[in-house]
Structures are given as C-alpha cells and as structure tokens.
C-alpha cells in the first residue's frame, strides 16, 4: 500500500467510503444514512416505486414529516397548504411500503430532519449522510460528511446505497480567538457569509476549525454548519471531539455500550493531520464578529447590527442586484438597521430551534411582553426539544411574552403555500434564508440570532440583543 501523507478530516471520511473509482475525479460513494422528508422525499419514493426498484437497505433510511406538516397545536394530517396533506399521506404510504422508519405527524420523535437526526443519534462521526434538502450540511457538525442532493439522486442512493460524487475541493476556515459575549454561532455564520459572498465556498467541503469553533457546543456547531449551503459550499464539517462524544453518548439510535467505545477508537482519529492540505485556507478572528442582521435578499447581505444599509452589495452583488434587494426590502442606503420597525418575529428552523436557542431567547423574554402589533412565533425544532423546553417552563415564558408556541416543523421558515406573514411585512427571523418571498409572498425577512429576534419582538423594531444583556453570558 502506498504510504499516505497527512490527510484532512474530509479525506479520512471520503477515502473509506469509495466503493469504486469512476474516473474523472468521481467515485461511487457509499451512503451510510439517507434522510427523507415529505416535501422532496415523497417524489423520490414514488418514482422509485413506479420503476419497481426496491430500496437497497431500508434500515438505514429515515423519514420525517416537517416541511408541509401543520404546526398549530392539535394538528393532524390536514395542512394549511392547499393540497399539502397529499404529500403527507403519500410519503407515509410509500415509506411504509418500503420498510422505512417514519417519524410521523404524531410521533413523539417527529421534528425537522436536521434537528432530529443528530438529536436521535442517527448521525455519527465519520459517516456519509445524504438528504434531498440543501441544509443537510447542518449534520456535518457531528464530524460527518453530510450533503444535500436532488430527488433523482435520492432515488439513486435509495436504490443502490451509493451516490456518484465528484470529489469536492476542500476549504478550511479557522476561527481563532473567542466570540465576544452576546455573539453567537449564528452571527459567526452570517459574518462568514458576508465576507465570502454567496458563491464564496462554491462546491467545497468546508472544515470549520480553530479555537472559537472548538469552544462551541454541539447545537451551536450545527447552527454554524447549517448556513454553509448559503455560500454554495457542498458541505461543512467539524472534527469530532469530546464535545461531540459526550453529546452522542446514550442517544437513542447511537451505538450503546461496548460498541460505542469501539466506534470511539475510530472517531478519535477523525481530525485533520498537521500538514493536511486544503484547496483554500481562511483564518478569521472571532473577536471581530458582532451580532449580525441581514438587510437584503441574500444571506450574504449581512452587516453588524449597529451598521447601516451599505452602499455597495456584498462580494458578487452587482449594482442592479443591490438596487433590487433594497427595493424589495423597502430600504435605502445609509439607513440604520437598529430601530427599523418589524411586525413579525420568528424563532425556529433547522438553524436555530434547538433547546439552547430557546433558552437564550427565553432569557431575554422572561417577564417581558412582545410589542403591540408584532406577531411572534416560536416553533421548536423537534417534539423532543418542545418537551424538554416545557419541562423547564420555557413554553410559559414564550406564551406569557406573547409568542405563539407551536408543534415542531419547518413552519414559517419558508412559504409552503398556506400560512405567511403577509406582503411587505417586515420580519426578524432566526432562519437561514431571506430570499424574495421566502417567508411568504413579498414578505421582508431579516435574518438574525434567536436573541436578536427576541429583543426585536419586545421593542417592535430591530434591536441589539446586548441591550437586554442579563449578565449570564
């Protein structure tokens, strides 16, 4: 065997998953986990069944109902989206026929796919994970190679247990130093996007490294990796460490006992070797990151919350696109973002709907009231998050502040065709995308951290969450 030089984390996952080299830099890569949801997974399952192709190994395929499912309390199969229940019913029957475990509408483990898969211990370090959903990169936080695919590729993975993948280029983003108090992983993600531009990670497997990343807890790492797709990266990943292992230990579907210890031996080797080569290397100073908010219609249109709407766009934004974004958002160059009136506040989505997100938002909301005229919602990312939050009384904090407290799902992260915030309504949102009409026709979305959303809901305008600092860090 050829002696191997120093390898990156990515290479250490890629290499053992190569079933066959297809030439041209492509390989047939074994997929350890396939996740499906009712919006795109239903199509894949249906067309596979129509072609009479069986699922190769249904025991490693998992399906949830998150995108279209209603999130109002007491929900069933009917949806706000006209015709939406067809997705639920067809997904259920196709998944059951294929022998796939479904986290169904009333399942106590249901939730947003990228929230439940790490939470249930389904995603393990060193695994390959695919899902017909662009935010699959979230799961790279576990030290996995996890990427979003199309429905046709999902059919391929289901039928063959593999995918034809062109080996991506690699990028390492090392974030050194420490994030300042009141600055979160979400702010770091937006800072990186603003710096790199919407195409700045094109097709790369991005490894997040450095002291500031290692200091993040697992949920914050997921938030950071979640937004890698917003700068066109294929995926993001973070080397597994003690934080990862202690998060994983005892999770429902994680290996237990001796098997866990055996796996750990392999998992501990999953770090980039000193001298590993990357196609791109970027080093950032965490100390430069402030609470961030977006002003435009691309996640790269992000600035420090106390900045003004900038003159030029982010990198790669043409003057025409810049003008169009301003027009859509109803903003002018030089306008202050702080103080901009909002009528909607949304805490949820696979970016920021986990227990730690809800706790931090609740710290700001406790004992206070949402401003008059603001419609505020909190949608826990999974039913497990919801139960855990209720056990701590967080639901009461949200409800007493004037938030709606929902069942888990994607909800108003995107407009499915039913519920929306309304045209030209300005919403501050803990989600990941502020595209035109993302949260409803003509709705204006400002992306920010859950604490910024909470603070802004209280004042009725975009607000620096540090104004509500509690001294708890």
């Amino acid at each position, binding site marked *: 065997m050829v002696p191997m030089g120093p390898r990156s984390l990515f290479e250490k996952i890629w290499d053992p998953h190569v079933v066959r080299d297809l030439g041209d830099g492509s390989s047939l890569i074994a997929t350890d986990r396939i996740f499906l949801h009712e919006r795109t997974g239903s*199509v894949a399952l249906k067309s596979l069944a129509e072609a009479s192709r069986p699922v190769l190994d249904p025991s490693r395929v998992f399906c949830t109902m998150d995108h279209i499912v209603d999130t109002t309390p007491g929900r069933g199969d009917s949806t706000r989206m006209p015709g939406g229940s067809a997705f639920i019913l067809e997904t259920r029957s196709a998944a059951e026929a294929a022998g796939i475990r479904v986290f169904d509408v009333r399942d106590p483990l249901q939730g947003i796919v990228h929230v439940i898969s790490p939470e249930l211990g389904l995603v393990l370090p060193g695994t390959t994970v695919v899902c*017909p959903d662009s935010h699959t990169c979230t799961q790279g936080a576990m030290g996995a190679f996890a990427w979003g695919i199309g429905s046709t590729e999902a059919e391929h993975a289901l039928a063959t247990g593999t995918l034809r993948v062109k080996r991506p280029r690699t990028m390492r983003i090392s974030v050194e130093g420490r994030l300042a108090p009141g600055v979160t992983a979400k702010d770091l993600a937006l800072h990186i996007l603003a710096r790199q531009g919407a*195409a700045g990670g094109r097709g790369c497997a991005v490894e997040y490294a450095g002291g500031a990343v290692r200091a993040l807890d697992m949920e914050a790492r997921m938030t950071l990796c979640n937004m890698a797709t917003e700068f066109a990266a294929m995926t993001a990943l973070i080397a597994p460490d003690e934080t990862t292992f202690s998060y994983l230990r005892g999770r429902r579907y994680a290996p237990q006992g001796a098997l866990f210890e055996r796996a750990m031996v392999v998992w501990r080797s999953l770090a980039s070797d000193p001298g590993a080569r990357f196609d791109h290397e970027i080093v950032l100073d965490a100390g430069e990151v402030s609470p961030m908010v977006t002003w435009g219609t691309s996640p790269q249109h992000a600035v420090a919350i106390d900045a003004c709407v900038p003159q030029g766009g982010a990198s790669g934004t043409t003057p025409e696109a810049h003008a169009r974004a301003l027009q859509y958002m109803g903003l002018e160059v030089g306008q202050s973002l702080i103080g901009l009136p909002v009528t909607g506040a949304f805490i949820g989505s696979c970016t920021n709907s986990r227990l730690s997100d809800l706790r931090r938002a609740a710290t700001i909301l406790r004992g206070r009231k949402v401003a008059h005229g603001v419609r505020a919602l909190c949608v826990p990312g999974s039913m497990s998050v919801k139960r855990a939050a209720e056990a701590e009384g967080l639901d009461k904090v949200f409800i007493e502040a004037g938030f709606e407290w929902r069942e888990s799902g994607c909800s108003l992260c995107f407009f499915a065709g039913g519920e929306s915030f309304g045209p030209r309504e300005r919403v501050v949102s803990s989600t990941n995308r502020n595209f035109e009409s993302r949260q409803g026709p003509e709705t204006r979305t400002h992306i920010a951290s859950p604490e910024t959303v909470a603070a802004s809901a209280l004042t009725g305008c975009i607000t620096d969450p540090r104004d509500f600092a509690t001294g708890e860090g």
Partner: protein
Amino acid sequence: MEPMRRITAVAAPLLRDNIDTDAIIPSREMKTVSKTGLASGLFAGWRYTAIGGREPDPGFVLNQAPYAGARILLGGANFGCGSSREHAVWALREYGFRVIIAPSFAPIFEGNCVRNGLAPVRLSVETVAELASRIVLDPQAHRLTVDVEQGVVYAAPSSQHPFELDGESRAMLLEGLDAIDLTLKHRADIDAFFASDRVARPWIYPDAAAMDRPL
C-alpha cells in the same frame, strides 16, 4: 431520458445573478407529489402580474414575442442557488428548456440538470453578456446552437464558444442514461463493500430491536 446532443433554438436572456430555486419555481406552485404539472409555475413570481395569478406580465422576457418557444436560457452567475428542490429543473424542462447558459451554477442544481436532460453550460461572464446583448440587439440572432457532443456554443460562424462538461455529465446527457442503471452494473462491488463494512464498522448498521424500544 431524452438524449441531449445538439440543439438550435431561440435563446432568452435573464441575466440576473443568484436566480434561486424559489424564483424558478415558487413553493406555492409545487402542488403535487409529482415531477410534472410544473411548467405553468416556472418563474411564476416574475412571469405573472399577481401572486398566484396567470395574467402574463409583459415586462418579463419569456412573455415577449421574440422569445416564444425559447429552449435555451441565458442566466446570471450562481444560477439555481437556494433550496435543493429538483422541481426547479423539472419546471424548466417541462416548459421546454434544454440548455441553461450561465457563468456559474449552484452545485446541487447543476447535478440535477444533467440528471434530467437539461444541459448546464458554463461560459465566462463576458461571453454570456455578449451573447445576451447580441440577442437583444438583433432579433435575427435569437437562435443559438449548443453542441454537447463537441462542447461548443455557436452564435454565428465567427462566434464560437467552447465549454466544458465533466465526462460523466456529458455521457448522461448524450446517451440519455439513467444513473441508477449505470451504477447497478457495479452491484458486485457494492455488495462486497457493505459485506466487509458490516464487519469493520458494525455501529453503522442499526439494531432494529434497540430502535423500537419505548420512549
């Protein structure tokens, strides 16, 4: 799948950067669990005067007479970014597009294109702009020829622009191949891989009994 070798057709310019999949097919237009019935929702937010309506907005390029029947679309950089929804490609295909020419594509979208007989052709920003202005200025020059086999876009005898496609994408487009069939030719390799992996990494293979234990 229909092979895509060479096409000569009307090209429509839509040179916005970062045209995302929500713009290509808004989620409200994806009403069924199906790959069809999507063409009328293509670019719905831009194409019609009102949300959810069907009255053509005369300002939108595809509603303008010279571009009727366009089969080639010229787009801006980072075409197809945003959600991974393959419906974007299905909608473009069902509308009739066979080629998208742009300076760059979002990776998931680009992969979806070749799997559905839609050729993603990358040309430089300058070339795309030049082709677009040629089209806008001269109604006679609306037609382009895209030859996937040769890897060339022809606008005129004096205007030839080579492009690159990786071998696999090219083969899939040219032969109209289904990737699953292609891969299942390696079934023996796949079975051998999983047989030895079960021994090497048993923790990857779930234990059904443990999974269904009560909450």
